[in-house]
């Protein structure tokens, strides 16, 4: 069941890959095609169906680039 989603602020992300490593559900990837305004590879949210809104990626993003949303009414 889908529980939530994240949004990644592309102006803040530095492409360090820590969120990709820490998400145990494989919801995030670093894409070489998408670069931030300062030329860093950007993290992007994939596998949206698997996100549990656990917030681990947001806690351990050093650049405060991730916000986590929990679905309250999935009808």
């Amino acid at each position: 069941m889908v529980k939530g989603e994240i949004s990644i602020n592309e102006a803040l992300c530095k492409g360090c890959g820590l969120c990709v490593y820490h998400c145990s559900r494989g919801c995030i990837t670093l894409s070489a095609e998408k670069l931030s305004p300062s030329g860093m590879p950007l993290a992007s949210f994939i596998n949206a169906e698997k996100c549990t809104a656990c917030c681990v990626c947001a806690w351990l993003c050093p650049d405060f680039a991730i916000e986590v949303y929990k679905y309250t009414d999935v009808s």
Partner: protein
Amino acid sequence: MNREAVTKEKICTAPKSKTGMPIMHCPGCHYGIIIRVICEVIDEMGIEGDVVGLTSVSCSGPWAYSFYFDSALCPHGRSPAMGTAIKRIHPDAIVFTVQGDGDLGAIGLGCFMNALLRAEKLTTILLNNGTYGMTGGQMSPTTLLGMRTTTTSEGRDYRVTGFPLHAAELVASMKGVAYSARCTVHTPANFQKAKRAVRTAFQKQIDGVGYSFVEFLSACPPIWGVSPVEALKFISEKMMAEYPLGEFKNVDSIL
């Protein structure tokens, strides 16, 4: 599923006591995560109106821009002295210093030890990344034995440059200290433990018990010459082998 139709609630974002200023550190540096630890604890304790953050001459200097509460950047190694002055003039303020391993362990060691000896009611947060990141990676007091830096090109040798400084253990041995712990933010569980340690440290100060101290092992990927993800392994395999995690002192009275 129609994603537009769901109602959603934001459950995790930047803490209120963090300004919108972007973090100025290198990709994968743990300092941003430690800012989150401190600011989340301050939000949860509701002490943002009373807290004063003193940053030091290290990569953590610009944290004063990130703190949405009173803060100041101190002369090199002197934040415990500035903290002492602020605390004595405003005894109800909750004063903490953030210091790098060079700032606390080298130039500021005397100032720090004297503040401990005086049992000041301060909290110090030490950022231990084993190197002088700001000036390009020289050996610092906490550099591991055998670790290569720009000033120990063959690796640190104790016969030439001595042994690494174990700050949390040293602090725990001092009479004026109420709390001393070492933590990391390299896994989600350790992130939560670090929050508990910082909260306990602030509480010891609020209760007027004595000095409280939290050391963070923190990654510096560019200077260590590893990727941000490899740096996590360096912390768990190398740093934690030299610097064990845990609480070294937790007392309710220093007498």
